[in-house]
């Protein structure tokens, strides 16, 4: 049973001295360009409503200027919203005092940064132990905990090195270890892997997924890379110019884009590799199984593996199982149709 960890409700953010006064213009429909032209204010976030599920990876995606960096910083109130609520397990963070929000940051949220943000004058061990020492834990305990996580991210032996002695990939692992040492239920990752080389990036993405399997943190991940988003996301939010274009399960978005923008966005991906059986299977309606099923497939198999399995024969049908349970059927013709990028149809088009 998935639980909502953080809820963003009606978040608006305008940058400029008169943000509160100009809010009603935006609420009445003024757009980003008009606000800039008329009032020299920047509209960064426009009526954001997102529910972030516990223990899942939510990826917020968008191009530059979409507001994603601003959005993630609202979650721990590094940036204050012009209007709106940020509810953490039901409690509105926007009304908390300085002292309380600091406590919340210490205990509930950790962060990993694009440019690593490691303190250059402290060793890896001290950097990783920082969240605990901020909370007042004594040095020996901090070091012990930190060592554990340094080892876990594969940097054993580097405890006494300084950040400038490490490569980019290693530094970001330190950043991840630091966030993990904080032992918070929520982890915010601001384009955490964008500064790394592609091969290193793949490694560290795999590390994250592996850790997630074990730790099941609520992760909010920001990126502009669609491949990364699709690899990591349990839930995907696509932002453009400060508003949410579409949000949902990645598979669902691929199959049902609601906006020409989304179509464009996803047009280049390898659909066969990304789409899963569960997105195109026919659910088991009246309990009747096809008699000529060629075999059983798992609900999470990729279409690519299905094509390989079927040898390209579109006449096959398969029974789809989830664990031991039969949940539906897969028609290879449907699979082939799913390979073609979807166009926003009348029913799915976003009502703006």
């Amino acid at each position, binding site marked *: 049973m998935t639980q909502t960890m953080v809820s963003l409700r009606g978040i608006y953010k305008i940058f400029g001295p008169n943000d509160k006064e100009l809010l009603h213009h935006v609420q009445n429909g003024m757009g980003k360009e008009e606000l800039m032209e008329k009032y020299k204010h920047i509209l960064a976030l426009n009526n954001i409503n997102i529910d972030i599920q516990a223990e899942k990876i939510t990826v917020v995606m968008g191009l530059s200027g979409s507001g994603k960096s601003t959005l993630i910083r609202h979650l*721990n109130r*590094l940036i204050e919203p012009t209007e709106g609520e940020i509810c953490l397990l039901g409690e509105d963070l926007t009304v908390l005092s300085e002292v309380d929000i*600091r*406590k*919340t*940051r*210490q*205990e509930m*949220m*950790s*962060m990993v*940064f694009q*440019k690593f*943000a490691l*303190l*250059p*004058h*402290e060793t890896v061990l001290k950097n990783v132990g*920082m*969240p605990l020492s*901020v*909370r007042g834990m004594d040095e020996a305990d901090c070091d012990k905990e930190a060592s554990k996580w340094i080892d876990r991210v594969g940097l054993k032996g580097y405890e006494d090195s*300084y950040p*400038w*002695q490490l490569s980019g990939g290693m530094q970001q692992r330190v950043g991840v270890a*630091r966030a993990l040492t*904080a032992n918070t239920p929520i982890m*915010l990752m601001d384009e955490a892997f964008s500064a790394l080389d592609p091969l290193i990036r793949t490694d560290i993405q795999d590390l994250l997924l592996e850790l997630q399997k074990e730790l099941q943190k609520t992760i909010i991940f920001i990126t502009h890379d669609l491949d990364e988003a699709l690899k990591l996301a349990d839930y995907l939010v696509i932002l453009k110019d400060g508003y949410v274009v579409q949000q949902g399960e990645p598979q669902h978005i691929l199959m049902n884009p609601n906006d020409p923008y989304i179509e464009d966005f996803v047009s280049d991906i390898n659909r066969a590799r990304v789409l899963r059986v569960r997105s195109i299977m026919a659910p088991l309606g009246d309990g009747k199984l096809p008699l000529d099923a060629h075999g059983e497939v798992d609900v999470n198999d990729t279409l690519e593996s299905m094509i390989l399995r079927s040898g390209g024969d579109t006449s096959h049908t398969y029974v789809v199982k989830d664990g031991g349970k039969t949940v539906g059927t897969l028609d290879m013709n449907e699979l082939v149709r799913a390979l073609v990028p979807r166009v926003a149809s009348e029913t799915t088009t976003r009502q703006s």
Partner: protein
Amino acid sequence: MTLYDKLFSFLGLSDWCKSENKAIISLKDLSAQAAGKEASGPFFPIPSLDNLNESCSRVIKSRDVTNGIEEGFLAAKPALKTVLDPITQPLSWMLDGALWVFESTPWFIMVPILVAISWYASHSRPVSIFVAISIMLLAFVDHYDETMQTLSIVFVCTTISVVFGVPIGIAMSNSDRLQRSLLPLLDLLQTLPTFVYLIPLIFLFSVTESKLYGIAIILYAIVPVIRLTDLGIRLVDYEFIEAANAFGMNDRQKLIRVKLPLALPNIMAGVNQTIMMSLAMVVIASLVSAPGLGVNVLRGIRNLELGVGIIAGIGIVLLAVILDRVSKAALKRIDKTRPKD
């Protein structure tokens, strides 16, 4: 006859202008008298108080303005003294105490201590050797006592400048408003000729107290360390502040763990500048009875003893170089943010 004479008579003020004060004749008037004619001057001189006074004796002269300032200051002096004297007394004690320590410690203990301090600070053999040679060189030409006196003054004044300057710089970095109001004051302290603020200081504090020259030096030398602390902290990359905030650091933790260590290169540059400026003030301080190498420089100037002045001057330069090298080497050693090469 100037324009102003005509102006005052036009305004009908001629009678009012004739005041009771007996006019003081100027040399110009006297030479005109000698030649048997009226003092001539331009018809339209600049409208200054003195020129207006020529036409109308009721207008005060500029010297009355300067006298007024002096009277005002003298009137405020007792009140200022009761406030400032107790606050600044510790400075006198520190300067006198340091002077006593530096002067009475025998050289065979003092010089090794100084070399040891420079070694501890810089961990650089060339610098420590240079310190030893420089001091012994000055001692060789019988300038050891003066060198120690100057060193003790610079030591005390720099310490106080840093102890007060760094917190002021930190406060400035936290508040734009404070920075805006303090910056003009700092500019004033650095550009106002030191003699100008020496004058009120001489009025306020007794010349026989060491705090007089102590305050003069500190007012001049404290400015770089304040400026560079403020600048250094403001220049700390925002990404570090953001990370500190994200993990819930409070202001004190941020200051001690993030801002100050990252601002340290700039702060040390400020300390280095403060030391140099203290040394620059040595000769002026000697004008108000500070002991040390400055006294010899002044003697050289007064008696036109070229050699005396030059040797003392070289001594000051040597001290400056020593202190500069040691503080720079100390900076390199504690700056962990730079890769060691």
